[in-house]
């Protein structure tokens, strides 16, 4: 067994060492002991109180002996419907964890570093993520085009279909400016939810003074109802790696990190293997493909914090700091990792880049419907015949996805509500005429975001779903800005009926006032988006709210 000194010596020389060092102790001891934290504090020269505070920020770092091996059961909105409470009761010492990204095949359970899945009463098994079905609309895809091929996750499999061709051409014949031009012309925009034009981001980093520059792949897929990045990384890891290498080539970055959410331990192994293979083949590391271009790539595993999907919180987490979001501006393009120019892109965004460079900007633009450029992966889950990941042309009618592609509601049921952007976009109760693109959804007071859509049929209690959603945001609020820290708590209490005015009008006024201020003045996207839950509930389900408030009186 490694000694404390071995572990510290192994990681202290690496970039972004805190998380991997903590994981090393966590894996070795089964929890983070006081002695371990003292060793880390000394080894990395982090004040002990700071380190302690930072460790307590993360959901999954156990601080009691045996904590790491106790089952953690997903109690996300879909798993709740599938019996996560019963499953938790069946498992000795189990505790709940927020949505762990397997809504298409619930219920995931983490035990140590094993990602199991099962239902109450059945044996838990380590099974791979469900593969996306063939495109039901028989439409051309970008990210999923090759993902279903056997062996795609291996270097050989990826290369046999033209993989790393875009990187090879760029390095041998192309130029950084040329790569940026194609990405800009393609109209590709951030697929993690923020929708910032990717080419413009890369240009800003390329032009920013200072270095070394960094590419960060945001794989902290924490939004409930989102499980698209997992399938991309599990079945097409080299597409993500090639996308990162292209971003590095385009911007002059020399190092990169994949910040992977804690809940995907199997994915970490897949990525590590893929990086090793790519390095051995001269596609990563020093002097890539014999050129002057060098790019070192590292995987860093999170530890359970939704807010670390917010890019500046992620950067603080990587740097070993308390993962509060930073004040913006300045933005990561000039002041990112270690305050140096940094690209932070989502997995799907990066995986889109190799095909765009291989087939051209016009090809990608043409994949969207109407004026919309490109495609978006939608993670569809809940009360629908065929949940799963679907790559849709941007602008596709939601009705087509729900009914034609995913088979419509379950037998004898009708759709009551869908969520957008996982939970962040709130609920939609009327969605017959919705198309899957930001202009349409923004006009409806929602947004597409990372593309998670959860479907709830007529059996579901909307007020209770809203309560669960707000409880999630309260659980994940970082605690920095007042409106979010207190607001998510107060809204949860009101939805649960634990506190708040008994008078219905006054109840609605309080809920509306909190939401208005949260949306306007919160410091980051979490607090800005969270009140969409209550706002959409009051907008689209006023009768359910009234009935709920009435029922409380008796």
């Amino acid at each position: 067994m490694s000694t404390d000194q071995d572990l510290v010596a192994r990681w202290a020389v690496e970039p972004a060492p805190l998380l991997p060092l903590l994981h090393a102790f966590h894996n070795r001891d089964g929890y983070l002991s006081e002695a371990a934290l003292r060793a880390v504090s000394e080894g990395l020269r982090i004040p002990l109180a700071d380190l302690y505070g930072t460790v307590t920020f993360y959901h999954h770092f156990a601080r009691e002996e045996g904590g790491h091996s106790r089952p953690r059961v997903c109690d996300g909105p879909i798993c709740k419907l599938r019996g996560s409470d019963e499953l938790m009761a069946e498992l000795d010492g189990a505790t709940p964890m927020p949505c762990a990204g397997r809504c298409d095949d619930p219920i995931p359970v983490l035990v140590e570093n094993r990602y199991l899945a099962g239902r109450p009463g059945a044996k838990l098994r380590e099974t791979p993520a469900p593969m996306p079905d063939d495109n039901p609309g028989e439409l051309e895809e970008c990210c999923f085009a090759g993902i279903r091929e056997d062996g795609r996750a291996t270097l050989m499999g990826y290369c046999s279909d033209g993989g790393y061709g875009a990187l090879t051409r760029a390095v041998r014949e192309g130029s950084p400016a040329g790569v940026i031009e194609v990405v800009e012309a393609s109209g590709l925009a951030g697929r993690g939810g923020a929708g910032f034009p990717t080419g413009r981001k890369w240009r800003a980093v390329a032009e920013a003074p200072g270095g070394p520059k960094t590419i960060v792949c945001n794989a902290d897929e924490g939004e409930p109802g989102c499980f698209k990045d997992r399938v991309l990384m599990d079945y097409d890891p080299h597409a993500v790696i090639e996308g990162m290498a292209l971003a590095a080539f385009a911007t002059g970055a020399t190092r990169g990190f994949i910040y992977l959410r804690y809940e995907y331990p199997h994915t970490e192994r897949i990525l590590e293997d893929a990086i090793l293979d790519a390095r051995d083949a001269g596609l990563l590391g020093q002097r890539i493909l014999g050129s002057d271009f060098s790019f070192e790539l590292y995987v860093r595993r999170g530890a359970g914090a939704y807010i670390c999907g917010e890019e500046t919180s992620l950067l603080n987490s990587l740097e070993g700091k308390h993962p509060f979001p930073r004040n913006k501006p300045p933005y990561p393009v000039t002041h990112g990792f270690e305050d140096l120019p940094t690209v932070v892109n989502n997995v799907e965004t990066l995986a889109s880049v190799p095909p765009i460079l291989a087939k051209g900007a016009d090809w990608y633009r043409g994949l969207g419907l109407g004026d919309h450029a490109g495609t978006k992966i939608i993670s569809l889950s809940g009360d629908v015949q065929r949940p799963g990941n679907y790559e849709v042309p941007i602008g596709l009618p939601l009705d087509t996805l729900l009914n034609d592609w995913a088979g419509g509601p379950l037998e004898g049921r009708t759709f009551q509500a869908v969520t957008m952007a996982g939970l962040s976009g709130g609920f939609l109760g009327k969605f017959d005429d919705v198309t899957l693109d930001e202009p349409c959804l923004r006009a409806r007071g929602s947004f597409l975001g990372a593309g998670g859509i959860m479907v709830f049929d007529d059996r579901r209690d909307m007020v209770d779903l809203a309560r669960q959603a707000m409880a999630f945001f309260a659980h994940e609020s970082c605690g920095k800005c007042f409106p979010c820290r207190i607001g998510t708590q107060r809204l949860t209490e009101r939805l649960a009926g634990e506190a708040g005015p008994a008078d219905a009008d006054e109840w609605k006024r309080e809920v509306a006032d909190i939401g208005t201020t949260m949306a306007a003045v919160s410091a980051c996207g979490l607090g800005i988006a969270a009140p969409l839950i209550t706002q959409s509930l009051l907008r689209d389900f006023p009768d359910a709210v009234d009935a709920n408030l009435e029922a409380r009186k008796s």
Partner: protein
Amino acid sequence: MSTITIDGQSVPFEDGETIYEVSRRLERDVPTLCYDDRLEAFGACRLCVVELEGARNPVASCTTMAADGMVVRTATEAIERHRKTLMDLVVSENPKGARIDPLRGLASQELAHLAVRYESDGSRFVGKQSGTSRPDDTNPMILRDYDNCISCYRCVRVCAEREGDYAISVANRGFETQITTEFAGLLEDSDCTFCGQCVQTCPTGALGDLRSMEAQDQPGEFEKTRSICPYCGVGCSVDILTKNEKIVGVQPAMDGPANLGALCVKGQFGWDWVDSDERLTQPLVRKDGKLVPASWEEAWERAAKGFKSVVEKHGRHAVYAVASGRAPHESAYSVQKFVRYGFGTNYVDNCSRA
């Protein structure tokens, strides 16, 4: 020159100035709770939000740099409504904050004042309270009354940014956040040096000066007298708090040029000896190996005789004087004058020169 328009008034600004700083120069009363101008702007309380033309949402003025041509409104109806909601929210988790004795600390009334200004009485947004007090921490200097904590983290930041102790930090997240030492222990087991800076920047009195608080129940208001801390050569400005002519506390002067609100444990908490029962109130001389009370004349004579004989025997440099850091400045001055002029030597020092 670059200018920014604030509430209709166009003003020049310096590079690196925030909207909040410019607004304050114009005497705009922009409220804050997480702000301490000695610390890096944090942007947590969001009370300082202002309307910025062209921005979709209000911006936090404390973290937004002034830029040429910006048009800012600091107190529109919408902005004031957000502030009212924010204050109602803060007071809802901290309803006792309006009744905090000012002896707890220098900034301890900030929340109470804003609660009055925004008429936040705790009747709206009723719900769970955050923060858990630490009555188990029985140190004699710093009260840890976290029931009154609003999670602005000024204490954590002043400890790190000004004192460099990093003794406290933020545990957990969201509504469960809690000010903590390493492993949630006691202050005396942590890296805390009891400088008291956390106490003095706390805007709610969640941290309190326990020594001053002993005088809470004495009738009357306290007075402040500006002075310089005598303990060492740094020259920290202090306000000495007195009630009924007795010292009841010391607070650092935020505008003290040498300390900018900083003190150390001695300057902050070491004043109780002033009225100590154990102090000498009359001269003592040693007779037959025992100290016994004497008249001033007798004492002076005895001292003069002793000094004289030493100087006659060994010369003027055989005398060396050390003044106490607990003596008033005037005494310290007299000692050096006496030694230099009276004995003709520069062999004089002060215990707090370190």
